[in-house]
Structures are given as structure tokens and as C-alpha cells.
């Protein structure tokens, strides 16, 4: 594309062109209106003057007859001014007046409306002047012409015309200048966006758009795009972590599985040995499937596609159901499980996902408390759901060994299992799912010390 073509295609050029056309039309219309109004006003004034003079002369005629009119005209003609007077006799000869040349045909007219004519005032004048005149018939075929020079009006017209042209020229100039600056500024910023996005497309995700202190639309756009890039980088890191962890946490059981089958095949061909090995293999593959499902689920939830429809929920009901569901498990582990939840606690979300998140928390808590300090005589887990201002707060508190503060944030990540829990069954995905579910519901997860023990607190925005 040529440089000109590129410029013409820019938004700045198009906008400037539109503004230019709009303002030109407006300016021309405005100046035109002023011209017309001024013209009309001045012409009207001339007419009024002519009419007034005719009135005075007619009065004179009534009082003193023809001679009076002629005398009055002769007297007026001597006063220098813009007024024109001519009186002719029946042969068309000038009897009195201050005009030397008027179109002869004019005097034969007897129109009552003023007309515009060229005339000469002094003998031997080279150019014609322009006047507005009115011709009146007098007795004995005499005729009287009264008029006023209107070159003044013509001059005003000229001035306005010139002003109009200057205004349009100035507008073109201003439009060009503003287009130049606007387009330069806009193009520069857009070019910088283009350059940054090229850099990002080339694989360098660290690039960010420039945000100026001006705080204009471009800055807002840049800020949003930067936030979007941050989010993408975060997701990519998550993806990378997952693939690293999949490599580790799925490959390990797969290797174990394969080794077992291989060892069994290499060993003695006994039905009972085979059966035991196959059963263990199924168990192992079930665990793998479970881990795989959990990973897919987390990925789906994190990608923002909720599993199942989102709808109005009562957190008190959900918590009560989950506690009821887990109560026998807690009892079997010798853990007292209590709930305090008074509904309704309105919330918008997925029952399935929130139930699963709470289940995971309870599962973890039971494992922790049961494997905890044997000196703790009354292992307890307390589930609490309540509304605090605009938030639905659910907490699961245990009096187990707790999690050291430095490791708390860490455990929300995928496949992270604290050394203590390595011996326990589990995929290390439970809390990652909790984190993903809470984020999907625009909530937060917090972990704190229950002294002793751990409190996991989930906060969700309440439905209003």
C-alpha cells in the first residue's frame, strides 16, 4: 500500500474529513444566512428612506403644486448625499435633479416598487453607479424619480463574501492541522500497540502496552489489554505447571503399573498371582482415571465453564447436605463433625461444584485430624456457614496439626501434597479444585490458624 493510501485509510483521516465537511457546510450556511439577512435589512432601509422622501415631496406638491416639488427637489439636490432626484417633463427632459444619466426607458415606467438601476451622477463620469429608485407620475405627464445610491450595500456584500472565503480557507487549514496532529498522535499510539502485539505474537509474552499518565481512552485500553495479557500469562503458567505435574504424577503410577505387569509376566504362571496382579492393576488404573478426571475438572472450572447450570442456591442447605454426607466417615475416624448454618444463605452458583469443594475440604480435614497429634483427645471439625454483609462465608475448622503459614498458599496449587500427607491416599488436587471453584464463583479462599489446627474460609458474594 502506498503511504497516501495508508493515511487515507486511517480513522484519523476519516474523522478529520467528516469534521471538515460538517464544519464547512455549517460555516457556508451561517455566512450565507448573515449575508441574506444583512442584505435584506439594508435594502429595506433604503426602501423606507425612499418612501419617506416621496411622502415629504408629495406633501410639498399638495401644498405648492408642481413648482413646489421642483423647488424642493432643486433644494435637496444641492445637499450632498446618497439621495437621487430627477423630475422630467412630458418630453422626458430633465427639469430638476442631481443625476445626469438614467436609463430613458425607466422613466416611462410607473411602477410603485423600487427597482435597481445603473446611473451616472456627474457629466462625463466613466462608470455607472447603482441605485435603487422609484418613479412616480406627476400631473401634466411630468415624472419624478426618487432613489438612493446602494453601492454601500454592494461593498458590504463584497466584504462578507471575502470573509466567507477566508473562513472556509481557514477551516480547511485548521482541519488539515488538527488532522495532522490527531492522526500523528493516534497513529503513533496504535502503531505502538501493533508493535507490542507483534512482539507478543512472536512469543515474547513479557511485552506490555505503554500507559501514559494522561489517563485517556488509549490508556484505559492499554490497561485492559495489559490485564488481559497478565491473565493469559497466568493461565499459561498454570498450564505449564499442570503438564510438568502430569508428567510426574501420572507417569509415576503408570510406571508402577507397567512394572507390576512386567514382573508378573516374568514370574511363575500361577492363576492366583495373575489375579492379584490384575486386581492391583485395575485399582491403580482407577486411581489414575480419578486423577485425570480431577485434572480435567479443574481445567474446565478454571477456564470458566461451569459444570452444570449455575442457579440460585442456599449455602446453608449445601453445607448441611455435605456434612450429613460425611458425618459417618468422620464418626468412623473418631472425629466429631459439627455444623452451624442458619439459612437461607442465598448464593448464585453450582451446587455440584460447591458440594464437591466442601467435600474435599472435609476429606482433607478428616485425614489431617485423624493423623494428627495423638495427644489431642477430642478431634473436632467445625463447619460454619453464615452471611457477613454481602458475603456468604463458609469455614471448615479442625483442631489438627494445621499447616505452617509458609506452606499455606502453596497447598492450593495442583499436585502439592505436604510431606505429612504423602502416606495418605489422595491426588493432591483437592485444594486446587476448591481454589478453582471459589474463583469461578468470584470468591476467595483463606487459610488461617485455628490455634491449634487449620481454618479454611471460603467467601462468596451473596446473591441480592
Amino acid at each position, binding site marked *: 500500500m502506498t503511504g497516501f493510501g495508508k493515511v487515507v485509510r486511517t480513522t484519523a483521516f476519516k474523522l478529520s474529513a467528516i469534521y471538515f465537511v460538517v464544519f464547512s457546510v455549517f460555516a457556508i450556511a451561517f455566512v450565507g444566512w448573515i449575508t441574506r439577512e444583512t442584505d435584506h435589512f439594508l435594502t429595506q432601509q433604503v426602501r423606507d428612506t425612499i418612501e419617506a422622501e416621496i411622502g415629504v415631496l408629495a406633501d410639498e406638491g399638495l401644498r405648492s403644486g408642481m413648482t413646489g416639488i421642483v423647488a424642493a427637489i432643486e433644494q435637496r439636490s444641492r445637499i450632498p448625499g446618497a439621495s437621487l432626484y430627477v423630475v422630467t417633463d412630458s418630453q422626458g427632459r430633465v427639469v430638476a435633479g442631481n443625476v445626469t444619466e438614467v436609463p430613458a426607458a425607466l422613466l416611462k415606467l410607473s411602477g410603485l416598487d423600487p427597482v435597481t438601476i445603473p446611473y451616472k451622477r456627474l457629466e462625463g463620469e466613466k462608470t455607472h453607479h447603482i441605485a435603487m429608485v422609484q418613479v412616480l407620475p406627476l400631473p401634466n405627464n411630468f415624472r419624478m424619480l426618487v432613489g438612493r445610491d446602494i453601492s454601500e450595500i454592494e461593498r458590504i456584500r463584497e466584504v462578507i463574501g471575502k470573509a466567507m472565503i477566508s473562513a472556509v480557507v481557514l477551516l480547511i487549514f485548521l482541519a488539515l492541522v488538527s488532522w495532522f496532529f490527531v492522526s500523528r498522535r493516534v497513529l503513533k499510539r496504535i502503531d505502538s500497540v501493533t508493535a507490542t502485539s507483534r512482539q507478543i505474537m512472536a512469543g515474547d509474552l513479557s511485552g506490555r502496552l505503554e500507559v501514559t499518565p494522561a489517563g485517556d481512552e488509549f490508556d484505559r485500553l492499554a490497561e485492559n489489554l495489559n490485564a488481559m495479557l497478565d491473565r493469559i500469562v497466568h493461565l499459561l503458567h498454570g498450564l505449564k505447571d499442570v503438564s510438568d505435574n502430569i508428567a510426574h504424577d501420572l507417569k509415576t503410577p503408570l510406571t508402577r503399573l507397567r512394572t507390576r505387569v512386567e514382573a508378573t509376566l516374568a514370574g511363575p504362571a500361577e492363576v492366583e498371582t495373575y489375579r492379584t496382579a490384575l486386581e492391583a492393576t*485395575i485399582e491403580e488404573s*482407577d486411581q489414575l*482415571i*480419578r486423577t485425570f*478426571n480431577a485434572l480435567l*475438572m479443574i481445567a*474446565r472450572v478454571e477456564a470458566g*465453564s461451569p*459444570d*452444570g*447450570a449455575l442457579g440460585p442456591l442456599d449455602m446453608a442447605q449445601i453445607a448441611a*447436605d455435605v456434612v*450429613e*454426607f*460425611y458425618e*459417618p*466417615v468422620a464418626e*468412623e475416624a473418631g472425629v466429631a463433625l459439627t455444623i452451624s448454618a442458619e439459612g437461607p444463605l442465598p448464593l448464585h452458583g453450582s451446587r*455440584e461444584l460447591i*458440594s*464437591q469443594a466442601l*467435600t*474435599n475440604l472435609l*476429606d482433607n480435614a*478428616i485425614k489431617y485430624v485423624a493423623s494428627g497429634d495423638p495427644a489431642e483427645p477430642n478431634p473436632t471439625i467445625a463447619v460454619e456457614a453464615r452471611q457477613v454483609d454481602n458475603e456468604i462465608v463458609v469455614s471448615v475448622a479442625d483442631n489438627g496439626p494445621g499447616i505452617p503459614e509458609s506452606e499455606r498458599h502453596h497447598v492450593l496449587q495442583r499436585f502439592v501434597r505436604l510431606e505429612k500427607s504423602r502416606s495418605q*491416599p*489422595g*491426588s493432591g488436587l*483437592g485444594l486446587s479444585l476448591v481454589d478453582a471453584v471459589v474463583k469461578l464463583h468470584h470468591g476467595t479462599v483463606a487459610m488461617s490458624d485455628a490455634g491449634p489446627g487449620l481454618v479454611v474460609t471460603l467467601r462468596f458474594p451473596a446473591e441480592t
Partner: protein
Amino acid sequence: MRILLVEDDRETASYLVKALREAGHVPDHAADGEEGAFLVDTNKYDVIVVDRMLPKKDGLTLVEETRRKGNDTPVLILSALGQVDDRVTGLRAGGDDYLAKPYAFSELLARIEVLARRRKPGEAETLLKVGELELDRLSHLVKRGDINIPLQPREFRLLEYLMKHAGQVVTRTMLLENVWDYHFDPQTNVIDVHISRLRSKIDKGFSEPLLHTVRGAGYMVRDGVR
């Protein structure tokens, strides 16, 4: 029981056909959606098992067409897509049950048998009886012989589901879905604990156990005399 299996993976299909035959059923196999549709139209089956993604005609379309023709044979949809959304789409298309791949054969078999039974009349009976165990669905009372057995509401629903399918294997997942309406897999065997609690209430102190564990599959309520 006549079962139609519409599954495009040859190996899976031949394994399933063999296993269903061993379980005492009469399976037919179709390798794609069109063949499946033809068999559905020309035969009478007790249960149709359809893979969701099939060559020539996909599973959901096959189910929708079957239903449009007024054929109400129970349909079990198999799919690699196991999320709740996919399940809802499958059931909306006219499926009666939905099973996500990979699944255990025992799970598939249990669901097929429950589906086939669902068609039989007399389903709305208010009094469920297995041996000397009675469950009254109206008064919510459970009796074994002359002894009243007090149950928690959820225990009642658990026993109700088991007794409704007396003589059939009921898997943990089926219980989770039908009694608790949860479609996820809890990390601990919560169901087992609920069952052992229920068992201690209905079987403890009686010589003949009614609630049996079917190894590698699930549970079954059955009159021991049979």
C-alpha cells in the same frame, strides 16, 4: 435380555458383547449410527446402549430419532464426555442413563439391568418388601419382622433405592447419583460407610443378612432364601 450395543471401537465392542453374553444376556452389535438405527427399527430390545460419538450418525441423533418414532426402549448413553453438562444434554436427547468412559464393566452391567427392570409395571408400589424387611413409602416406616427400625431420612432414601432394585446390583456411583444427587467422585469411600451404617441397622441381630456387598461391583438387597 436383548441388548443392542452401538459402539464403533471394535475391541471394546467385542469385549462387551462377550461379557454381556457371559452375564446371560443376548447382545447385538452395531458399529455405526446407521446400522444401529436399522437394528432399533427392526428388532425389539430391552435396553439400547449407545456410544455418543459414532460414525455416520452420532449417538444423540440416533436416540432423538428413536424417541421421535415413539420407541421408548430404555437407552444408556456412553460417552468420553463425563461432565454434568454433557450428561444433561444426553438425558435431554431422550437417554435414560448416562455413563462416562472409562467405566467398569460391573457398573455398565448394573445400570443395564436396572434400566431393563424400570420398564416393568407395578413400579409405583407403596410397600417395598424383601424377605421380612418392609419399607412403607407413604408412612416412611421400616420394619423387619415385627421390629420397627428407625432410620434417618437419608438412610431411608438409601434403603428405598436399594429395595426398589432388590435382587439387582446397585453401584456406588448409582447410589451417589440417585440418593445424594452428587455426580462427583468423593475421595473417600463415603458410600461404603453409609452402607455399613445402614447394614448395622437392618441386619444386625438377624441371622439372615439382606444387604449384601457384591465384590468389585456394589451392593444388593436380596432375600437370602432365594
